[in-house]
Protein backbone atom coordinates (compact mmCIF):
# COMPACT_ATOMS: atom_id res chain seq x y z
CA UNK A 1 0.00 0.00 0.00
CA UNK A 2 2.70 2.36 1.07
CA UNK A 3 4.81 1.59 -1.96
CA UNK A 4 2.05 2.44 -4.39
CA UNK A 5 1.50 5.72 -2.54
CA UNK A 6 5.18 6.52 -3.11
CA UNK A 7 4.81 5.48 -6.71
CA UNK A 8 1.96 7.88 -7.35
CA UNK A 9 3.73 10.78 -5.68
CA UNK A 10 7.00 10.27 -7.51
CA UNK A 11 5.34 9.81 -10.88
CA UNK A 12 3.17 12.89 -10.51
CA UNK A 13 6.08 15.02 -9.30
CA UNK A 14 8.26 14.01 -12.23
CA UNK A 15 5.42 14.45 -14.72
CA UNK A 16 4.69 17.88 -13.29
CA UNK A 17 8.35 18.90 -13.58
CA UNK A 18 8.55 17.75 -17.18
CA UNK A 19 5.39 19.63 -18.14
CA UNK A 20 6.79 22.78 -16.55
CA UNK A 21 10.04 22.29 -18.48
CA UNK A 22 8.10 22.02 -21.73
CA UNK A 23 6.22 25.20 -20.93
CA UNK A 24 9.43 26.95 -19.90
CA UNK A 25 10.98 26.36 -23.32
CA UNK A 26 8.54 28.83 -24.82
CA UNK A 27 8.60 31.46 -22.09
CA UNK A 28 10.20 34.78 -22.80
CA UNK A 29 13.26 35.03 -20.60
CA UNK A 30 14.13 38.67 -21.06
CA UNK A 31 14.06 41.10 -18.18
CA UNK A 32 10.54 42.18 -17.54
CA UNK A 33 9.64 45.74 -16.74
CA UNK A 34 6.16 45.12 -15.48
CA UNK A 35 7.29 45.15 -11.85
CA UNK A 36 7.51 48.88 -11.84
CA UNK A 37 4.60 49.61 -14.17
CA UNK A 38 1.44 50.54 -12.31
CA UNK A 39 3.29 51.88 -9.32
CA UNK A 40 3.36 55.45 -8.19
CA UNK A 41 6.58 57.40 -8.61
CA UNK A 42 8.68 57.68 -5.44
CA UNK A 43 9.50 61.07 -4.03
CA UNK A 44 12.62 62.37 -5.69
CA UNK A 45 14.85 65.40 -5.82
CA UNK A 46 17.10 65.68 -8.85
CA UNK A 47 19.50 68.46 -9.71
CA UNK A 48 18.89 70.50 -12.85
CA UNK A 49 21.51 70.11 -15.56
CA UNK A 50 22.34 73.77 -15.82
CA UNK A 51 21.63 75.25 -12.43
CA UNK A 52 21.81 74.27 -8.79
CA UNK A 53 18.11 73.95 -8.16
CA UNK A 54 16.24 70.74 -7.48
CA UNK A 55 13.45 69.25 -9.50
CA UNK A 56 11.04 67.47 -7.15
CA UNK A 57 8.15 65.12 -7.50
CA UNK A 58 5.77 67.97 -6.66
CA UNK A 59 6.98 69.73 -9.80
CA UNK A 60 5.27 67.12 -11.93
CA UNK A 61 2.05 68.96 -12.73
CA UNK A 62 -1.29 67.23 -12.39
CA UNK A 63 -2.71 68.23 -15.73
CA UNK A 64 -0.17 66.58 -17.94
CA UNK A 65 1.55 63.31 -18.66
CA UNK A 66 5.30 63.11 -18.24
CA UNK A 67 7.87 61.11 -20.13
CA UNK A 68 11.05 60.64 -18.17
CA UNK A 69 13.91 59.94 -20.55
CA UNK A 70 17.28 58.71 -19.29
CA UNK A 71 20.04 59.62 -21.71
CA UNK A 72 23.74 60.40 -22.08
CA UNK A 73 25.88 62.06 -24.70
CA UNK A 74 28.21 59.04 -24.79
CA UNK A 75 25.39 56.67 -25.59
CA UNK A 76 24.99 55.92 -29.28
CA UNK A 77 21.44 54.52 -29.20
CA UNK A 78 20.40 57.81 -27.58
CA UNK A 79 21.22 59.56 -30.83
CA UNK A 80 19.00 57.11 -32.64
CA UNK A 81 15.95 57.80 -30.51
CA UNK A 82 16.46 61.55 -30.49
CA UNK A 83 14.23 62.38 -33.50
CA UNK A 84 11.35 60.55 -31.84
CA UNK A 85 11.77 62.63 -28.71
CA UNK A 86 11.80 65.76 -30.89
CA UNK A 87 8.48 64.64 -32.39
CA UNK A 88 7.01 63.90 -28.99
CA UNK A 89 7.92 67.41 -27.96
CA UNK A 90 5.13 68.64 -30.19
CA UNK A 91 2.50 66.87 -28.10
CA UNK A 92 0.57 69.32 -25.98
CA UNK A 93 -0.39 67.16 -23.07
CA UNK A 94 3.07 65.67 -22.59
CA UNK A 95 6.06 67.11 -20.81
CA UNK A 96 9.42 65.48 -21.33
CA UNK A 97 11.86 65.24 -18.45
CA UNK A 98 15.39 64.39 -19.54
CA UNK A 99 17.71 62.87 -16.98
CA UNK A 100 21.29 63.13 -18.13
CA UNK A 101 22.98 59.96 -16.90
CA UNK A 102 26.63 59.76 -15.71
CA UNK A 103 27.72 62.43 -18.12
CA UNK A 104 29.77 65.60 -18.32
CA UNK A 105 27.82 68.84 -18.36
CA UNK A 106 29.73 70.23 -21.33
CA UNK A 107 29.21 67.15 -23.50
CA UNK A 108 25.54 67.00 -22.58
CA UNK A 109 24.94 70.59 -23.59
CA UNK A 110 26.86 70.15 -26.84
CA UNK A 111 24.72 67.13 -27.61
CA UNK A 112 21.51 69.14 -27.11
CA UNK A 113 22.82 72.07 -29.08
CA UNK A 114 23.70 69.88 -32.03
CA UNK A 115 20.62 67.69 -32.18
CA UNK A 116 18.02 69.95 -30.58
CA UNK A 117 16.61 69.97 -27.09
CA UNK A 118 13.40 67.96 -26.68
CA UNK A 119 13.28 68.37 -22.91
CA UNK A 120 10.95 70.60 -20.93
CA UNK A 121 13.14 69.92 -17.92
CA UNK A 122 16.77 68.94 -18.18
CA UNK A 123 18.07 67.17 -15.12
CA UNK A 124 21.39 65.65 -14.27
CA UNK A 125 22.19 62.38 -12.50
CA UNK A 126 25.94 62.40 -12.25
CA UNK A 127 26.48 59.19 -10.29
CA UNK A 128 23.46 57.32 -11.64
CA UNK A 129 21.88 56.85 -8.22
CA UNK A 130 18.72 58.85 -8.95
CA UNK A 131 17.89 56.70 -11.94
CA UNK A 132 17.67 53.68 -9.66
CA UNK A 133 14.40 55.18 -8.38
CA UNK A 134 12.96 54.50 -11.81
CA UNK A 135 14.37 51.00 -12.02
CA UNK A 136 16.89 51.87 -14.70
CA UNK A 137 19.24 49.20 -16.10
CA UNK A 138 21.18 51.37 -18.50
CA UNK A 139 20.73 54.10 -21.07
CA UNK A 140 18.54 54.95 -22.83
CA UNK A 141 15.33 54.19 -21.02
CA UNK A 142 12.02 56.01 -20.90
CA UNK A 143 9.22 55.96 -18.37
CA UNK A 144 5.75 57.31 -19.09
CA UNK A 145 3.90 58.77 -16.09
CA UNK A 146 0.23 59.73 -16.09
CA UNK A 147 -1.30 62.78 -14.46
CA UNK A 148 -1.73 60.91 -11.16
CA UNK A 149 2.02 60.20 -11.07
CA UNK A 150 1.52 56.55 -11.82
CA UNK A 151 4.01 54.79 -14.09
CA UNK A 152 2.01 53.49 -17.03
CA UNK A 153 4.72 52.27 -19.33
CA UNK A 154 8.43 51.63 -19.47
CA UNK A 155 10.70 51.40 -22.50
CA UNK A 156 14.12 49.79 -22.27
CA UNK A 157 16.53 50.75 -25.03
CA UNK A 158 16.01 53.41 -27.68
CA UNK A 159 12.46 54.45 -28.49
CA UNK A 160 11.37 53.31 -31.93
CA UNK A 161 8.46 54.25 -34.13
CA UNK A 162 6.19 51.65 -32.57
CA UNK A 163 6.95 52.99 -29.10
CA UNK A 164 6.13 56.44 -30.43
CA UNK A 165 2.71 55.29 -31.60
CA UNK A 166 2.11 53.49 -28.30
CA UNK A 167 2.91 56.66 -26.40
CA UNK A 168 0.55 58.70 -28.58
CA UNK A 169 -2.19 56.17 -28.01
CA UNK A 170 -1.67 56.24 -24.24
CA UNK A 171 -1.80 60.03 -24.34
CA UNK A 172 -5.05 60.07 -26.26
CA UNK A 173 -6.74 57.61 -23.92
CA UNK A 174 -6.62 60.31 -21.32
Amino acid at each position, binding site marked *: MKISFLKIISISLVAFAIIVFFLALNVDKRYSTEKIVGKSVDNFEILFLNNDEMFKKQDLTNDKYHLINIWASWCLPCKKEHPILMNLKKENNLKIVGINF*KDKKLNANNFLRELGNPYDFSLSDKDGTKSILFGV*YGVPESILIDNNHKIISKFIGPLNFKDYEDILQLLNEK
Partner: protein
Amino acid sequence: MKNKLIIIFFYLFFLELSAAEINNLESKIFKNLRCIVCQGQSIAESNSDFAQTIKIVVRDKINQGDNEKEIYEFLAEKYGEWIIYKPKFNYINSLLWFSPYIVLVFGGLLIFKYLKRRKQ
Protein backbone atom coordinates in the same frame (compact mmCIF):
# COMPACT_ATOMS: atom_id res chain seq x y z
CA MET B 1 32.71 14.07 38.29
CA LYS B 2 34.39 13.53 34.97
CA ASN B 3 31.12 13.90 33.07
CA LYS B 4 30.38 17.11 34.90
CA LEU B 5 33.75 18.50 33.91
CA ILE B 6 33.05 17.72 30.30
CA ILE B 7 29.65 19.37 30.44
CA ILE B 8 31.12 22.46 32.06
CA PHE B 9 33.79 22.58 29.39
CA PHE B 10 31.26 22.62 26.57
CA TYR B 11 29.01 25.04 28.38
CA LEU B 12 31.79 27.60 28.83
CA PHE B 13 32.92 26.98 25.33
CA PHE B 14 29.59 27.80 23.71
CA LEU B 15 29.06 30.77 25.97
CA GLU B 16 32.24 32.22 24.53
CA LEU B 17 31.17 31.50 20.96
CA SER B 18 27.73 33.02 21.11
CA ALA B 19 29.31 36.34 21.99
CA ALA B 20 30.96 36.58 18.61
CA GLU B 21 29.05 38.03 15.69
CA ILE B 22 30.17 39.16 12.31
CA ASN B 23 29.20 42.64 11.38
CA ASN B 24 29.66 43.59 7.83
CA LEU B 25 26.24 44.57 6.65
CA GLU B 26 27.43 46.31 3.52
CA SER B 27 29.24 43.39 1.96
CA LYS B 28 26.53 41.00 3.10
CA ILE B 29 23.98 43.03 1.14
CA PHE B 30 26.25 43.32 -1.91
CA LYS B 31 26.67 39.56 -1.98
CA ASN B 32 22.93 39.04 -1.83
CA LEU B 33 22.18 41.25 -4.84
CA ARG B 34 22.33 40.10 -8.42
CA CYS B 35 24.02 42.32 -10.93
CA ILE B 36 21.13 42.14 -13.35
CA VAL B 37 23.05 43.35 -16.35
CA CYS B 38 25.83 40.77 -15.87
CA GLN B 39 26.03 37.04 -16.37
CA GLY B 40 25.42 35.44 -13.00
CA GLN B 41 27.50 37.84 -10.93
CA SER B 42 26.62 39.42 -7.65
CA ILE B 43 26.93 43.15 -7.05
CA ALA B 44 29.92 42.41 -4.82
CA GLU B 45 31.78 40.60 -7.60
CA SER B 46 30.89 42.80 -10.53
CA ASN B 47 32.92 45.68 -11.92
CA SER B 48 30.08 46.89 -14.07
CA ASP B 49 28.71 50.40 -14.08
CA PHE B 50 25.40 49.18 -12.82
CA ALA B 51 27.03 47.46 -9.85
CA GLN B 52 28.96 50.60 -8.95
CA THR B 53 25.75 52.61 -8.91
CA ILE B 54 23.87 50.06 -6.81
CA LYS B 55 26.77 50.07 -4.36
CA ILE B 56 26.47 53.82 -3.92
CA VAL B 57 22.71 53.57 -3.45
CA VAL B 58 23.02 50.81 -0.87
CA ARG B 59 25.68 52.74 1.07
CA ASP B 60 23.48 55.83 1.05
CA LYS B 61 20.54 53.82 2.31
CA ILE B 62 22.61 52.30 5.11
CA ASN B 63 23.79 55.75 6.14
CA GLN B 64 20.20 56.96 6.10
CA GLY B 65 19.50 54.28 8.64
CA ASP B 66 17.57 51.86 6.47
CA ASN B 67 17.84 48.25 7.54
CA GLU B 68 18.65 45.26 5.37
CA LYS B 69 15.05 44.33 4.73
CA GLU B 70 14.05 47.83 3.71
CA ILE B 71 16.88 48.00 1.21
CA TYR B 72 15.87 44.69 -0.37
CA GLU B 73 12.26 45.81 -0.54
CA PHE B 74 13.24 49.05 -2.17
CA LEU B 75 15.31 47.33 -4.85
CA ALA B 76 12.79 44.53 -5.38
CA GLU B 77 10.13 47.15 -5.98
CA LYS B 78 12.24 48.71 -8.72
CA TYR B 79 13.77 45.63 -10.31
CA GLY B 80 11.64 42.70 -9.14
CA GLU B 81 12.50 39.79 -6.84
CA TRP B 82 15.02 38.78 -9.49
CA ILE B 83 17.62 41.11 -8.00
CA ILE B 84 17.73 39.32 -4.64
CA TYR B 85 19.73 36.10 -4.40
CA LYS B 86 18.12 34.83 -1.24
CA PRO B 87 14.42 34.56 -2.08
CA LYS B 88 12.27 35.94 0.67
CA PHE B 89 9.94 33.61 2.43
CA ASN B 90 6.44 33.98 1.07
CA TYR B 91 3.60 31.92 -0.31
CA ILE B 92 5.22 31.37 -3.70
CA ASN B 93 8.64 30.52 -2.31
CA SER B 94 7.47 28.39 0.60
CA LEU B 95 8.11 25.13 -1.23
CA LEU B 96 11.61 26.22 -2.08
CA TRP B 97 12.41 26.67 1.58
CA PHE B 98 10.47 23.71 2.90
CA SER B 99 10.99 20.88 0.48
CA PRO B 100 14.68 20.19 1.26
CA TYR B 101 13.68 19.70 4.88
CA ILE B 102 10.70 17.58 3.87
CA VAL B 103 13.17 15.32 2.06
CA LEU B 104 15.40 15.29 5.13
CA VAL B 105 12.61 14.31 7.51
CA PHE B 106 11.14 11.80 5.11
CA GLY B 107 14.53 10.16 4.52
CA GLY B 108 15.12 9.98 8.25
CA LEU B 109 11.76 8.28 8.79
CA LEU B 110 12.49 5.80 6.03
CA ILE B 111 15.80 4.77 7.57
CA PHE B 112 14.19 4.65 10.99
CA LYS B 113 11.58 2.27 9.64
CA TYR B 114 14.22 -0.23 8.65
CA LEU B 115 15.96 0.07 11.99
CA LYS B 116 12.86 -0.48 14.04
CA ARG B 117 11.70 -3.61 12.37
CA ARG B 118 14.18 -5.67 14.35
CA LYS B 119 12.64 -4.86 17.70
CA GLN B 120 9.20 -6.09 16.80
